[in-house]
Protein backbone atom coordinates (compact mmCIF):
# COMPACT_ATOMS: atom_id res chain seq x y z
CA UNK A 1 0.00 0.00 0.00
CA UNK A 2 3.07 2.22 -0.03
CA UNK A 3 3.60 4.84 -2.66
CA UNK A 4 7.18 5.41 -3.77
CA UNK A 5 8.72 8.79 -3.16
CA UNK A 6 7.73 11.33 -5.77
CA UNK A 7 11.21 12.80 -5.73
CA UNK A 8 13.01 9.51 -5.13
CA UNK A 9 15.36 9.65 -8.08
CA UNK A 10 15.84 13.26 -9.10
CA UNK A 11 17.86 13.17 -12.24
CA UNK A 12 21.33 14.62 -11.65
CA UNK A 13 21.28 16.50 -14.91
CA UNK A 14 17.85 17.93 -14.16
CA UNK A 15 19.05 19.14 -10.76
CA UNK A 16 22.04 20.81 -12.37
CA UNK A 17 19.81 22.57 -14.86
CA UNK A 18 17.62 23.78 -12.03
CA UNK A 19 20.66 25.13 -10.17
CA UNK A 20 21.80 26.90 -13.32
CA UNK A 21 18.37 28.46 -13.78
CA UNK A 22 18.31 29.63 -10.17
CA UNK A 23 21.84 31.04 -10.46
CA UNK A 24 20.92 32.89 -13.65
CA UNK A 25 17.68 34.20 -12.15
CA UNK A 26 19.61 35.47 -9.11
CA UNK A 27 21.87 37.36 -11.51
CA UNK A 28 18.85 39.08 -13.03
CA UNK A 29 18.13 36.79 -15.99
CA UNK A 30 14.36 37.10 -16.28
CA UNK A 31 14.15 34.42 -18.98
CA UNK A 32 15.73 31.96 -16.57
CA UNK A 33 13.06 32.76 -13.99
CA UNK A 34 10.36 32.37 -16.62
CA UNK A 35 11.71 28.89 -17.31
CA UNK A 36 11.42 28.11 -13.61
CA UNK A 37 7.79 29.24 -13.68
CA UNK A 38 7.01 26.96 -16.63
CA UNK A 39 8.79 24.07 -14.90
CA UNK A 40 6.80 24.34 -11.68
CA UNK A 41 3.51 25.83 -12.88
CA UNK A 42 1.59 22.56 -12.76
CA UNK A 43 2.99 21.60 -9.38
CA UNK A 44 1.87 24.89 -7.87
CA UNK A 45 -1.48 24.66 -9.67
CA UNK A 46 -2.10 21.20 -8.19
CA UNK A 47 -1.48 22.53 -4.70
CA UNK A 48 -3.44 25.78 -4.81
CA UNK A 49 -6.37 24.34 -6.76
CA UNK A 50 -6.43 21.35 -4.43
CA UNK A 51 -6.48 23.67 -1.42
CA UNK A 52 -8.76 26.41 -2.73
CA UNK A 53 -10.78 24.77 -5.45
CA UNK A 54 -10.88 25.88 -9.06
CA UNK A 55 -11.57 29.57 -8.49
CA UNK A 56 -10.04 32.91 -9.57
CA UNK A 57 -8.30 33.25 -6.20
CA UNK A 58 -6.34 30.07 -6.93
CA UNK A 59 -4.57 31.72 -9.85
CA UNK A 60 -3.89 34.85 -7.77
CA UNK A 61 -2.30 32.70 -5.08
CA UNK A 62 -0.37 30.80 -7.74
CA UNK A 63 1.02 34.04 -9.15
CA UNK A 64 1.86 35.33 -5.70
CA UNK A 65 3.75 32.11 -4.95
CA UNK A 66 6.13 32.72 -7.84
CA UNK A 67 6.44 36.42 -7.05
CA UNK A 68 7.42 35.54 -3.48
CA UNK A 69 9.98 33.09 -4.85
CA UNK A 70 11.40 35.81 -7.08
CA UNK A 71 11.62 38.28 -4.23
CA UNK A 72 13.36 35.77 -1.99
CA UNK A 73 15.83 34.40 -4.56
CA UNK A 74 18.74 36.14 -2.87
CA UNK A 75 17.96 34.29 0.37
CA UNK A 76 17.48 30.93 -1.36
CA UNK A 77 20.49 28.82 -0.47
CA UNK A 78 19.51 25.61 -2.23
CA UNK A 79 19.23 23.48 0.92
CA UNK A 80 15.82 22.34 -0.30
CA UNK A 81 14.90 22.02 -3.96
CA UNK A 82 13.08 24.86 -5.67
CA UNK A 83 10.03 22.61 -5.90
CA UNK A 84 9.94 22.02 -2.14
CA UNK A 85 10.51 25.71 -1.42
CA UNK A 86 7.75 26.70 -3.82
CA UNK A 87 5.39 24.10 -2.38
CA UNK A 88 5.86 25.56 1.10
CA UNK A 89 5.14 29.06 -0.20
CA UNK A 90 2.05 27.87 -2.07
CA UNK A 91 0.71 25.98 0.96
CA UNK A 92 1.23 28.96 3.29
CA UNK A 93 -0.39 31.41 0.88
CA UNK A 94 -3.31 29.02 0.36
CA UNK A 95 -3.81 28.76 4.12
CA UNK A 96 -3.74 32.57 4.34
CA UNK A 97 -6.42 32.74 1.65
CA UNK A 98 -8.55 30.24 3.55
CA UNK A 99 -8.21 32.35 6.71
CA UNK A 100 -9.22 35.40 4.71
CA UNK A 101 -12.29 33.55 3.46
CA UNK A 102 -13.12 32.51 6.99
CA UNK A 103 -12.97 36.11 8.19
CA UNK A 104 -15.18 37.09 5.30
CA UNK A 105 -17.72 34.31 5.54
CA UNK A 106 -17.29 32.91 9.03
CA UNK A 107 -16.38 29.41 7.87
CA UNK A 108 -13.61 27.54 6.12
CA UNK A 109 -15.72 25.36 3.97
CA UNK A 110 -18.95 25.30 2.07
CA UNK A 111 -22.24 24.87 3.83
CA UNK A 112 -23.96 21.57 3.22
CA UNK A 113 -26.63 23.21 1.06
CA UNK A 114 -23.97 24.87 -1.09
CA UNK A 115 -22.40 21.46 -1.64
CA UNK A 116 -25.74 19.87 -2.45
CA UNK A 117 -26.36 22.46 -5.16
CA UNK A 118 -23.40 21.00 -7.03
CA UNK A 119 -24.70 17.46 -6.85
CA UNK A 120 -27.10 16.31 -9.55
CA UNK A 121 -30.41 14.64 -8.87
CA UNK A 122 -29.60 11.41 -7.02
CA UNK A 123 -32.36 9.59 -8.84
CA UNK A 124 -31.05 10.46 -12.29
CA UNK A 125 -28.54 7.77 -13.29
CA UNK A 126 -27.34 9.73 -16.30
CA UNK A 127 -26.52 12.74 -14.19
CA UNK A 128 -24.90 10.80 -11.35
CA UNK A 129 -21.41 12.16 -10.84
CA UNK A 130 -18.52 9.85 -10.41
CA UNK A 131 -16.62 9.69 -7.18
CA UNK A 132 -13.68 11.60 -8.58
CA UNK A 133 -15.94 14.56 -9.32
CA UNK A 134 -17.45 14.62 -5.86
CA UNK A 135 -14.33 13.86 -3.83
CA UNK A 136 -12.83 17.27 -4.64
CA UNK A 137 -15.97 18.93 -3.35
CA UNK A 138 -15.55 16.87 -0.20
CA UNK A 139 -11.94 18.02 0.19
CA UNK A 140 -13.11 21.64 0.26
CA UNK A 141 -15.11 20.76 3.36
CA UNK A 142 -12.07 19.54 5.27
CA UNK A 143 -10.37 21.62 7.89
CA UNK A 144 -7.23 23.25 6.37
CA UNK A 145 -4.76 21.18 8.39
CA UNK A 146 -6.36 17.97 7.07
CA UNK A 147 -6.82 19.38 3.60
CA UNK A 148 -3.10 20.15 3.38
CA UNK A 149 -1.98 16.58 4.02
CA UNK A 150 -4.60 15.17 1.65
CA UNK A 151 -3.51 17.51 -1.14
CA UNK A 152 0.20 16.85 -0.69
CA UNK A 153 0.03 13.12 -0.04
CA UNK A 154 -2.96 11.85 -2.00
CA UNK A 155 -3.25 14.33 -4.88
CA UNK A 156 0.30 15.54 -5.44
CA UNK A 157 1.81 12.18 -4.54
CA UNK A 158 4.49 13.26 -2.08
CA UNK A 159 5.73 10.54 0.24
CA UNK A 160 5.07 10.73 3.97
CA UNK A 161 8.58 11.97 4.71
CA UNK A 162 8.41 14.58 1.94
CA UNK A 163 5.03 15.77 3.19
CA UNK A 164 6.43 16.03 6.71
CA UNK A 165 9.47 17.93 5.41
CA UNK A 166 7.34 20.40 3.44
CA UNK A 167 5.01 21.06 6.35
CA UNK A 168 7.84 20.99 8.91
CA UNK A 169 5.92 18.48 11.00
CA UNK A 170 6.92 15.15 12.51
CA UNK A 171 6.02 12.16 10.34
CA UNK A 172 3.81 10.85 13.15
CA UNK A 173 1.73 14.03 13.09
CA UNK A 174 1.32 13.81 9.33
CA UNK A 175 0.26 10.16 9.62
CA UNK A 176 -2.37 10.88 12.23
CA UNK A 177 -3.71 13.89 10.33
CA UNK A 178 -3.92 11.85 7.14
CA UNK A 179 -5.80 9.06 8.88
CA UNK A 180 -8.16 11.56 10.44
CA UNK A 181 -8.58 13.35 7.09
CA UNK A 182 -9.55 10.13 5.34
CA UNK A 183 -12.09 9.33 8.04
CA UNK A 184 -13.57 12.81 7.76
CA UNK A 185 -13.64 12.63 3.99
CA UNK A 186 -15.49 9.34 4.15
CA UNK A 187 -18.04 10.86 6.54
CA UNK A 188 -18.53 13.81 4.19
CA UNK A 189 -18.85 11.62 1.13
CA UNK A 190 -21.22 9.09 2.69
CA UNK A 191 -24.40 11.14 2.16
CA UNK A 192 -23.11 12.63 -1.08
CA UNK A 193 -21.92 9.46 -2.77
CA UNK A 194 -21.61 6.24 -0.76
CA UNK A 195 -25.25 6.07 0.28
CA UNK A 196 -26.26 6.38 -3.36
CA UNK A 197 -23.61 4.03 -4.72
CA UNK A 198 -23.49 1.20 -2.24
CA UNK A 199 -20.63 -1.03 -3.42
CA UNK A 200 -22.44 -4.06 -2.05
CA UNK A 201 -24.82 -3.74 -5.00
CA UNK A 202 -27.79 -2.56 -3.02
CA UNK A 203 -27.50 1.04 -4.15
CA UNK A 204 -30.34 3.45 -4.72
CA UNK A 205 -29.27 4.28 -8.20
Amino acid at each position, binding site marked *: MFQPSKLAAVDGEEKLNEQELVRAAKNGDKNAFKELIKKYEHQVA*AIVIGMLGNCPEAEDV*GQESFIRLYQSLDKFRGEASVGTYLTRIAINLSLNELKRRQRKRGRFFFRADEVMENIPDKNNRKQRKEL*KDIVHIGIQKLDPKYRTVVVLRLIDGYSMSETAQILKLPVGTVLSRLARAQMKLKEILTPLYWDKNDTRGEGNG
Partner: protein
Amino acid sequence: MDKKILKLLYRSFDEELNKKENRQLEAAMKQSEELRLERDRILAQRQALAESPKSSFKPFFAERVMSQIESLGEKKNGLETFYETLLVMFRRFALAGAAILIILLLYNLRTGDALSTDEIFYASDVAIEEIIDLPLF
Protein backbone atom coordinates in the same frame (compact mmCIF):
# COMPACT_ATOMS: atom_id res chain seq x y z
CA MET B 1 -16.67 -1.48 14.37
CA ASP B 2 -13.69 -1.79 16.68
CA LYS B 3 -11.98 1.62 16.73
CA LYS B 4 -8.57 0.06 17.26
CA ILE B 5 -8.97 -2.13 14.17
CA LEU B 6 -10.33 0.80 12.19
CA LYS B 7 -7.26 2.80 13.16
CA LEU B 8 -5.04 -0.08 12.02
CA LEU B 9 -6.86 -0.12 8.69
CA TYR B 10 -6.25 3.60 8.12
CA ARG B 11 -2.62 3.31 9.20
CA SER B 12 -2.04 0.40 6.82
CA PHE B 13 -2.43 2.66 3.80
CA ASP B 14 0.54 4.87 4.64
CA GLU B 15 2.82 3.05 7.02
CA GLU B 16 4.17 -0.44 7.43
CA LEU B 17 2.40 -2.34 10.18
CA ASN B 18 4.35 -4.84 12.23
CA LYS B 19 3.59 -8.58 11.95
CA LYS B 20 1.25 -8.62 14.95
CA GLU B 21 -0.75 -5.66 13.65
CA ASN B 22 -0.95 -7.20 10.18
CA ARG B 23 -2.29 -10.45 11.62
CA GLN B 24 -4.88 -8.57 13.67
CA LEU B 25 -6.04 -6.62 10.66
CA GLU B 26 -6.23 -9.63 8.38
CA ALA B 27 -8.22 -11.57 10.95
CA ALA B 28 -10.63 -8.66 11.41
CA MET B 29 -11.04 -8.31 7.63
CA LYS B 30 -11.98 -11.97 7.29
CA GLN B 31 -14.66 -11.64 9.95
CA SER B 32 -16.18 -8.23 9.12
CA GLU B 33 -17.86 -7.34 5.87
CA GLU B 34 -18.26 -3.80 7.16
CA LEU B 35 -14.51 -3.49 7.56
CA ARG B 36 -13.92 -4.80 4.03
CA LEU B 37 -16.42 -2.25 2.74
CA GLU B 38 -14.62 0.47 4.67
CA ARG B 39 -11.31 -0.59 3.09
CA ASP B 40 -12.85 -0.58 -0.39
CA ARG B 41 -14.30 2.90 0.11
CA ILE B 42 -10.99 4.32 1.31
CA LEU B 43 -9.19 2.70 -1.61
CA ALA B 44 -11.72 4.14 -4.04
CA GLN B 45 -11.34 7.63 -2.52
CA ARG B 46 -7.57 7.46 -2.70
CA GLN B 47 -7.68 6.24 -6.27
CA ALA B 48 -10.11 9.01 -7.27
CA LEU B 49 -7.74 11.58 -5.77
CA ALA B 50 -4.64 10.07 -7.37
CA GLU B 51 -6.35 10.03 -10.77
CA SER B 52 -7.40 13.66 -10.53
CA PRO B 53 -6.93 15.46 -13.83
CA LYS B 54 -3.76 17.51 -13.86
CA SER B 55 -4.57 20.96 -12.53
CA SER B 56 -3.41 23.92 -14.52
CA PHE B 57 -3.78 27.65 -14.62
CA LYS B 58 -5.11 29.50 -17.62
CA PRO B 59 -2.79 29.78 -20.65
CA PHE B 60 0.14 32.23 -20.57
CA PHE B 61 0.41 32.00 -16.79
CA ALA B 62 4.19 32.49 -16.89
CA GLU B 63 3.77 35.64 -18.96
CA ARG B 64 1.28 37.06 -16.45
CA VAL B 65 3.63 36.38 -13.56
CA MET B 66 6.57 38.04 -15.37
CA SER B 67 4.35 41.02 -16.13
CA GLN B 68 3.54 41.36 -12.41
CA ILE B 69 7.23 41.12 -11.55
CA GLU B 70 8.06 43.83 -14.10
CA SER B 71 5.41 46.16 -12.68
CA LEU B 72 6.74 45.57 -9.15
CA GLY B 73 10.17 46.62 -10.38
CA GLU B 74 8.75 49.81 -11.87
CA LYS B 75 7.00 50.73 -8.62
CA LYS B 76 10.23 50.28 -6.71
CA ASN B 77 12.07 52.56 -9.11
CA GLY B 78 9.30 55.14 -8.69
CA LEU B 79 9.81 55.17 -4.94
CA GLU B 80 13.54 55.52 -5.35
CA THR B 81 12.96 58.35 -7.82
CA PHE B 82 10.81 60.17 -5.27
CA TYR B 83 13.54 60.04 -2.64
CA GLU B 84 16.14 61.07 -5.13
CA THR B 85 13.99 64.04 -6.18
CA LEU B 86 13.63 65.09 -2.57
CA LEU B 87 17.39 64.96 -2.09
CA VAL B 88 18.00 66.96 -5.25
CA MET B 89 15.49 69.64 -4.21
CA PHE B 90 16.99 69.88 -0.73
CA ARG B 91 20.47 70.18 -2.23
CA ARG B 92 19.26 73.02 -4.43
CA PHE B 93 17.85 74.91 -1.46
CA ALA B 94 21.05 74.32 0.48
CA LEU B 95 23.17 75.52 -2.43
CA ALA B 96 20.96 78.58 -2.91
CA GLY B 97 21.30 79.44 0.80
CA ALA B 98 25.05 79.08 0.68
CA ALA B 99 25.23 81.28 -2.41
CA ILE B 100 23.20 84.03 -0.72
CA LEU B 101 25.48 83.89 2.31
CA ILE B 102 28.56 84.24 0.16
CA ILE B 103 27.05 87.21 -1.69
CA LEU B 104 26.20 88.90 1.60
CA LEU B 105 29.74 88.34 2.84
CA LEU B 106 31.26 89.80 -0.31
CA TYR B 107 28.93 92.78 -0.17
CA ASN B 108 29.84 93.53 3.40
CA LEU B 109 33.49 93.15 2.60
CA ARG B 110 33.14 95.67 -0.20
CA THR B 111 31.12 98.21 1.76
CA GLY B 112 32.95 97.82 5.09
CA ASP B 113 36.65 97.62 5.80
CA ALA B 114 36.52 94.54 7.98
CA LEU B 115 34.85 91.21 7.69
CA SER B 116 33.25 90.40 10.98
CA THR B 117 30.10 88.70 12.10
CA ASP B 118 28.86 92.01 13.46
CA GLU B 119 29.27 93.55 10.02
CA ILE B 120 27.58 90.58 8.30
CA PHE B 121 24.56 90.40 10.54
CA TYR B 122 24.43 94.07 11.59
CA ALA B 123 24.45 92.73 15.11
CA SER B 124 26.63 95.40 16.79
CA ASP B 125 23.81 97.82 17.52
CA VAL B 126 21.31 95.19 18.48
CA ALA B 127 20.77 94.26 22.10
CA ILE B 128 19.43 90.98 23.36
CA GLU B 129 16.34 92.66 24.78
CA GLU B 130 15.50 93.93 21.34
CA ILE B 131 15.77 90.44 19.88
CA ILE B 132 13.48 89.02 22.57
CA ASP B 133 10.92 91.72 21.85
CA LEU B 134 10.78 90.74 18.22
CA PRO B 135 7.32 89.43 17.14
CA LEU B 136 8.90 86.01 16.62
CA PHE B 137 8.44 85.19 20.28
